[in-house]
């Protein structure tokens, strides 16, 4: 009996592994160098005698997270499924008609109920409007206030006015109110411990110090617990022409966040501008006018993917790690959607949560159907409408609520 010969007999394993990893990366599966190296070693350790054996070695070494599995299956089928099929004349005829990404003839990958990344607009995907489509849109004139508490009366009417109808003075008032409204925010546990009642541990040092007063008997146990810090916020605001009406209001939000939560704020249109120091000024007018001056490319086109990747590549990229990322944009993008999906995936991996504020999401019957939004949505935790200050004010509460639940 002869030993079955492995597949891919005279193939350079390293070149094969790298090519396959590149193919996976093009489809949005994050494959690192370590993984590719593991794959090469696995090919040596387990000579691929069958397609299944090759499949398992590749899957165990190359894929590192569950949502990638479906896409891995697709790529594997495209690479090896069609290679086997091509002997069959019938299959060869069909493969001419397959789509350029090499997915036309194979059967669809098994539907994965947990895979949000594949969710398209018609399958629903994420709850892209987490708030109920409030009656605000229809009843804006006969203001029914949803946030009535502690609200100065001169602001009440302005709250639900869409941004484009606000005058500068009202915008300023609301901006100030926003600064005070941001109190609840997701926290992270820091490594630092501080004495606090009800903490999970006993603070030995403090307990011992108190024991001095009671003849060295530790009568009072002093408790200590980890200190919770608010998570860092990174705000990216679209200031292109399509966002002209909302840009000023978003600048107010960014200023409020920069002042209260040490946020990193950026504006983008065709390029990225960091506004953290500028917006941190004491006076709102000077801060905003300087910010308007600094953003040179206002009202040009939009390149969301390019700007996001600039941020991730810059030395401010580290600020995104573990942070709450707010992106304010209407989702009109000049860059190809695959690029946006790739950069959003990177952003999602780095950030604690990603929130997309879309002014259009407030309009009734809104469905995120632009290619940009559908590409970005799988990586967005919450998509919130942000058309009026009332919407903006709901953002912190919504974020805190989502963070508690998640």
């Amino acid at each position, binding site marked *: 009996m002869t030993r079955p010969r492995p597949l891919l007999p005279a193939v350079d394993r390293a070149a094969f592994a790298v090519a396959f990893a590149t193919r996976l990366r093009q489809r949005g599966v994050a494959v690192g160098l370590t993984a590719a190296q*593991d794959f090469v070693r696995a090919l040596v350790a387990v000579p691929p005698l069958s397609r299944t054996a090759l499949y398992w070695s590749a899957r165990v070494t190359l894929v590192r997270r569950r949502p990638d599995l479906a896409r891995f299956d697709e790529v594997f089928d495209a690479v090896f499924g069609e290679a086997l099929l091509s002997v069959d004349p019938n299959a060869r005829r069909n493969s001419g008609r397959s789509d350029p990404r090499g997915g036309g003839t194979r059967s669809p990958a098994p539907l994965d109920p947990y895979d949000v990344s594949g969710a398209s607009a018609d399958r629903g995907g994420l709850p892209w409007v987490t708030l109920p489509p409030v009656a605000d849109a229809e009843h804006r004139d006969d203001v029914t206030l949803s946030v009535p508490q502690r609200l100065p009366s001169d602001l009440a009417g302005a709250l639900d006015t869409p941004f484009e109808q606000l005058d500068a003075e009202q915008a300023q008032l609301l901006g100030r109110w926003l600064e005070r409204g941001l109190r609840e925010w997701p926290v992270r546990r820091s490594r630092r411990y501080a004495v606090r009642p009800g903490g*999970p541990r006993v603070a030995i040092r403090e307990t011992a110090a108190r024991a001095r007063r009671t003849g060295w008997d530790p009568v009072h146990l002093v408790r200590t617990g980890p200190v919770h810090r608010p998570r860092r916020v990174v705000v990216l605001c679209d200031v292109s022409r399509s966002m002209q009406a909302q840009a000023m209001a978003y600048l107010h939000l960014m200023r409020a966040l920069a002042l209260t939560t040490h946020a990193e704020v950026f504006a983008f249109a065709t390029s990225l501008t960091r506004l953290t120091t500028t917006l941190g000024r004491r006076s709102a007018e000077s801060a905003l006018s300087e910010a308007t001056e600094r953003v040179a490319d206002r009202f040009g086109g939009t390149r969301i993917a390019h700007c996001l990747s600039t941020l991730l590549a810059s030395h401010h990229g580290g600020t995104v790690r573990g942070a709450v990322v707010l992106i304010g944009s209407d989702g009109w993008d000049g860059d190809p959607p695959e690029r946006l999906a790739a950069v959003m995936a990177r952003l999602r991996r780095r950030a604690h949560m990603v929130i997309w504020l879309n002014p259009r999401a407030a309009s009734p019957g809104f469905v995120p159907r632009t290619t940009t939004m559908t590409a970005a949505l799988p990586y967005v935790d919450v998509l919130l409408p942000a058309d009026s200050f009332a919407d903006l004010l709901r953002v912190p509460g919504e974020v805190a609520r989502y963070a508690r639940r998640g």
Partner: protein
Amino acid sequence: MSELFGDADEVRQRLDAVGHLVDEGTATALYLATVLDRPLLVEGEPGVGKTSLAKALAQALDTPLIRLQCYEGLTPGEALYEWNHQRQLLAIRLTEARGGRLADADVFTEEFLHDRPLLRAVRHTGPLPPVLLIDEIDRADDEFEALLFEFLGEWSITVPELGTFAAVRPPVVLLTSNRSRELHDALRRRCLYHWIDFPSPERTAQILHRSVPAANEPLIASATQFIGSVRRLDLDKAPGMAEAIDWVSALAALRVARLTRSDVVSTLSAVAKSPDDRMAITGALDELGCPEQARRP
């Protein structure tokens, strides 16, 4: 140095010999983990047998299983090592009582060191490396993940007073996660990854045969089919392998030969673990192949 297993098929056979059935993917993953000396991150729905896989592996290799159960607030002292303060104090007192002199280094020796799971895995001496199970790593804090990096990368642990302990042979490390939070990329990069799916109906039947010898053929067949359709319902927690085994054991203990509606209802607590799930399953019993008329007289 001899390899632990010859090839992936041998992994499958040896696990089979200790009563644990695995598919080719899991066998390949385990084999690669032992050959490439990399930790294996196992994920899957609760109850697909992640923890029992590690137990079976240890049994098949005939090496000790060292288990580190992770939880929120797990500290290095509980995972790596701790100094035995009481014994150190006693040693000091004793030396003082005898009028001897004690150098600093005398109380920081290995005899005063409490081994915790990770250090125990590193210091294990034996012909075969131990199996280290780091269970439910997603429950530990981010900081603990970072702590694991030195260990997973170098297979060594540094005790400042004593020096660095390095493992003679890297232990076989299995990490399990229930995906209650995302693990850090750096940890994922260091591990091989395997997602365990619910086994297919045939495999489920095989596994049930193995684990519940008291159950008969038709009961297992109908139970497998029932569990399969229950998983398709919209439940808070779909029943896993563990639940299936519990349920069939319960049915077998009640000496049920054929699955009937009243039996299903009376043993439902083994499958449905929340009141909502219970109601969902009870409501769908008719579609699940347990119609009303099948009730026993």
